[in-house]
Structures are given as C-alpha cells and as structure tokens.
C-alpha cells in the first residue's frame, strides 16, 4: 500500500507563488477591464519642430549629446510612428537619445479625404526634402543619418537613390521590403487578376483603416488567441502588462493609407517588383538603388510575418555602397524595434553602427 506523499517545500513554494500570482492576475485583470484608457506611449521627451499639412517632425534632444550628425527616422504610412518610442526600456529612440544621438522622427499624420491625391512623388520629392532641409538647418549640420522602418525604409531608399548628392552620412533600413516577389500573403492577395486597386482607390479615396487592419490581422488569424493566452499567463507581471497595453494600443491604432500612394505601391512594387529591377519611376525619375553610395545597414527580422525575411535581406545586393551590412535579428516585425529582446539586441547594434559613422562631440 503506497504512502501519501507529503508535498515538499518546493511544491509549497510553487503553490504560494501561483496563489500570489493569481491574486495579481485578478487585480491587473480588473484594472484592464475597469480602466481601459489608452496606454501611455511616446514618452521620451520631445518637441514638435516642423509642421507641414498633416505631418509633424518630432525632435528628441539628447541630454548628453555625444554624436553628430542627427538621425532622421521615417516610418510607414500605414501605422503610427510611436512604435519606435513605445515604452520606457523598449524604445529605440530612448536608447539612441541616451546614447548621445540627436533624433528626429517623422509623423506623417492621419490623412484626410483630400490627401488621397498624395503620391509617392509628393512624399519622396516634396515632403522629405523639406523635412531634411529643416533638420539640417535647426541642427546646424550639413549631413544627417537617414533611417526608415518598414515602408519608411522605402522612403529613405527612394530619397537616397533619387537625390544621390544629398548629404546623407548613412542609411539605416529596418524591416524594409525591397523584393516584393517574396512579400508572402500580401503579394498573393494583391494578385492583379483578382485585386482591382484602381476601383478600390477611385471609390474610397484613402484606403480605409479598418480594411487594412483586417488584412494585417488575417496574416496571423490565430494571433488573437495566443495573445490572450500569453496575457493570462503573465497578467501577474506589472511590467509585462504595461508593455502589452502599449503594444496592443499600437497594433490596433490603424490609419487610412493615402489612395494614390497605395495605388503606386501596389502597381509598381507588389505587381511589377520594379524597385529591384531598376524600373521604378517616381516624379519622372528612375529609381536606381545603385546610386546609393553612403554606408547602409539593412536590418531584417527572421520571423517577420508582415515583411518576410526573403523580401528584405537582398537590399544590400542592390545598393552601390562599399560599406554595407546585413543584420538579421531573431524577432518579428514589431519585436524588431520594440521590446526587451530588441533592447538587448538591435538597439546596441544600431547604436554601435551609427556611432562608428558619426563624429564624436567632446564634452563641453
């Protein structure tokens, strides 16, 4: 006859730990339900330094600036830019500012109905040169580091290729698709046989935010289940919950996509993959990535389900830069630039790379 096993100390401790965690889960869960106000984001101190139409440029001064020239970051038209300054400790901008860089961030704003006419030419040859001129003027620098995340990286590439004499010290592309043949599900769903982009844009003007959100959510249809499972398991952890709320805010914060720009990206990039073929024309000028000669760091995410690795990694094969590097991070699309593993991996990599291509400023 077996004896009843008396729970040992480890089991008792484990029970106590789970009991305490359950109480914390109930507390945080109630907090989540009863106080669903938006999580604070974009908390690194900054000021708006430039406004034009809908866009704003934020200036993040460094309390102890050690490097020049400044870094200007462009983000996608489809999502909010605060992913790069999501949460203290998980913010690329916060890291770079604390490292000693002066950072500027473009917020393209929420397009209104009349912005449906904005084309890639308006962004690349209209807005970007004005923004860059302004940043150089206010910073007192003749060059900048130019960076872009996702479609923002495309803006950076297009600008650098179309303005090869523009003084760009270096180029940093984060999860930037260049080979649209490997874009995955988006490329399949936008197949020209089935997707009438002209009809969509001519009817709606700007592509509606909820349509975009649905499309992105469909890339991982089970993500909502695993998201809540992970949340429940970690609901006791205040830091996890704060980070989750900030991230969840960004994931659900979609904006319309300007119609003409959407039409152009669909036809020239997704349908015809013109960028890497050297056939893309913006503002009447051919985009030749080979004209980019400045140092370039291409950062790709190995588990990116939005911009698959195969669509980003080949960028360095097409630029004319001698100083070019591909860095593949073990992360997903958003996890590449935000979160704890990004703060341990990507952030120091980007900081070191930029520092090596910057002027050091001696302390006053």
């Amino acid at each position, binding site marked *: 006859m077996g004896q009843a096993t008396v*729970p040992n100390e480890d089991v008792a401790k*484990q029970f106590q730990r789970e009991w305490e965690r359950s109480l914390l889960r109930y507390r945080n869960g109630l907090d989540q339900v009863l106080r669903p106000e938006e999580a604070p984001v974009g908390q690194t101190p900054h000021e708006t330094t430039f406004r034009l139409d809908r866009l704003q440029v934020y200036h993040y001064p460094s309390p102890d600036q050690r490097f020049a020239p400044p870094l200007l970051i462009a983000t996608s038209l489809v999502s909010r830019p605060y992913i790069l300054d999501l949460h203290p400790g998980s913010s690329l901008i916060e890291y770079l500012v604390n490292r000693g860089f002066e950072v500027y961030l473009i917020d393209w704003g929420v397009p209104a109905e009349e*912005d449906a*006419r904005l084309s890639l030419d308006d962004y690349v040859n209209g807005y970007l*040169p004005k923004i860059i001129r302004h940043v*150089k003027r206010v910073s007192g620098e003749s060059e900048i580091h130019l960076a872009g995340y996702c479609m923002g990286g495309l803006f950076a590439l297009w600008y650098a290729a179309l303005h090869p004499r523009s003084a760009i010290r270096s180029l940093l592309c984060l999860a930037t698709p260049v080979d649209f043949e490997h874009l995955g599900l988006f490329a399949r769903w936008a197949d020209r046989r089935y*997707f009438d982009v002209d009809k969509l844009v001519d009817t709606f003007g700007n592509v509606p935010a909820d349509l975009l959100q649905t499309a992105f959510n469909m890339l991982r249809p*089970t993500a909502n289940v695993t998201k809540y499972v992970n949340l429940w398991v970690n609901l006791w952890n205040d830091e996890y919950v704060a980070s989750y709320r900030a991230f969840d805010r960004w994931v659900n914060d979609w904006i319309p996509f300007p119609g003409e720009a959407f039409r152009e990206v669909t036809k020239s990039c997704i349908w015809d993959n013109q960028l890497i073929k050297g056939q893309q024309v913006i503002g009447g000028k051919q985009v030749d990535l080979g004209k980019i*000669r400045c*140092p370039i760091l291409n950062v790709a995410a190995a588990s990116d389900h939005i911009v698959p690795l195969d669509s980003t990694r080949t960028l360095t094969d097409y630029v004319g830069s001698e100083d070019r590097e591909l860095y593949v991070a073990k992360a997903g699309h958003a996890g590449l630039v935000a979160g704890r593993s990004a703060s341990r991996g990507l952030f120091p990599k980007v900081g070191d790379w930029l520092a090596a291509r910057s002027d050091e400023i001696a302390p006053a």
Partner: protein
Amino acid sequence: MAESGGSAMPDPLALWKQMIESQDQQWSKALHDMMQTDAFAASMGSYLDNLVNVQGTITKTLDQYYRTLNLPSRSDVTRLATEVAELREAVLRLGDRVEELAERQDAAGRSSTAPTSAGSASPRRAAPQPRAGAPAKRTGAKRAPGSAGQPAEG
C-alpha cells in the same frame, strides 16, 4: 498531482500554454496554406469587389440625396478641400522659389564687392549656429567613403 520523490509540481499554466501553442502552430500552418491559394485570393478579390460596389452605390445615392436637398455632399467637400490643398501647395512652392531666389541674390551679393541693395525684403537665412554647449571643435571626425565633400542638395 504530487510526484513522488520530492520533485516540484508541473506548472499547470505552462502546460496549458504549451498545449495551446502546439494547437496554434497546426492551425496557423493550415490556415496559412489555405490563404496562399489562388481560390482564396479570388474569393478575397470578389469580397472586396462587392464591398467597393456597395460603397460606390451608397456614395452615389447619398450624393444624389444631398444634391436634391441643395446641400454639399461628401464628394463636394472633398473636392473643395483638395482644391484648397493644391492651392496651398502652389503657394508653398512659390514661397520656396522666392526663398531660393533670395538666397541666390544674397550669395551673389556676398561674392561681389558691391553692397546689396538696402531695404531688401528677402530674409537672410541664418548660418547654422553651433549647438549650445557643443564645443566648436569635434574629435575624431569619421567620414565614410563616398560621402565626404559632396555638396548638400536636400
């Protein structure tokens, strides 16, 4: 359930999470494979086409309704806003051109010995000022190949 021999209880939450994740992987793969097919893309296209048709009908109907009531429709307001935006862009382009001409004039004035005309309305853009607290001299200027000495265009 307690295991004999004094080892810790398996974490039930971790086991549950593992089970869900395993199921998720299988479902994800199956759904992903289905969504990659031509048939799915065609049905998505068809759904979108219907959505656009419905939206188009609604827009036209409402436009007609507002027109009947002698009120501006959404299309009218958008058209007006677009014209205002284009007008604003034209003004900004003019302003850029004036600034460019003023800079050229200032540059020409600086390079010649003759003084510039008094009372010129063109604003002189201030030369870049050193940042407060930043010393005039930098250390270890690091210029990458290909970028040194190229005139700024942007």
